[in-house]
């Protein structure tokens, strides 16, 4: 049974205020990084799944949509790599 590594990226929707991102952006500005804008803070989640690629993709899509993110306020995307593709890393 193949093993897959999933990387999930969850971010607040653009319409949602991100007070953490704004605070970091202000701090960067205080540190004289005058060219930085649009700081948004999100979440990064890793998972390992086993199964055939098609079923793992379907399962992961459901996990991301139903549990790992709240579609009311967050966007999520994921990447899936088979273990042998990343062997040695």
């Amino acid at each position, binding site marked *: 049974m193949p093993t897959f590594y999933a990387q999930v990226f969850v971010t607040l929707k653009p319409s949602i205020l991100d*007070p953490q991102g704004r605070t970091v952006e202000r701090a960067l500005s205080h540190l004289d990084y005058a060219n930085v804008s649009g700081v948004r803070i999100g979440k990064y989640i890793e998972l390992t799944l086993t199964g055939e690629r098609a079923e793992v993709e379907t399962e992961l899509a459901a996990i991301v949509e139903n549990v790992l993110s709240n579609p009311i306020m967050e966007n999520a995307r994921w990447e899936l790599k088979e273990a042998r593709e990343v062997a040695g890393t």
Partner: protein
Amino acid sequence: MKTAVIQFPGSNCDADALHAARLTLDPDAQFVWHTETALPAGTELVFLPGGFSYGDHLRSGAIAARSPIMTAVKAHAERGGYVLGVCNGFQVLTEARLLPGALSRNRDLHFHCAPVHLRVENAQTAFTAAYQPGQIIEIPIAHGEGNYYANPDTIARLEAEGRVVFRYLDNPNGSLNDIAGIVNEQGNVLGMMPHPERAVEMLLGSEDGLGIFESLKACVVK
């Protein structure tokens, strides 16, 4: 009114919720642990208390909303049974999709713990009939993630249908339209960030939360 207070790992207002329920609604109100799959027979009110269920991991209320007892709570709500979610309980209700919208970080990133003033916007619900329309009440808040958000269509619908039950006079967290509490379409599920169970005795500074429990009690007598 037979009351069940659900306990999740990390609930910390469960004892207050039970105390308020026993004082006002049901001397035999009891705790129900989150791993249970059924509510006690005859349960009329499910009280989802405040706290930090599962340490607020992933998102506040997210894991609790998917715990075993919630299937029974959803069935109870669908049957028309009453559900009251306070603070983390409100977050659980939105995560369980029993109420629309979501609660995110307070706009100033601070945890706010203070008495606040609310206006009773709808005094015709099962939870608010004991109040006067427009009555101003004082109830404490204690939360870091109470910033109510929903898409513009949902907000417009909540407003048009009178489902915004409580509104902050001085918005502490950035909630859209100063929303402090809402009911579902059927009117049997209330979620609110302020803690009415902490305002049922003058010893603790306010009795203004009593109205919610008195309203519910009157529903049963009817």
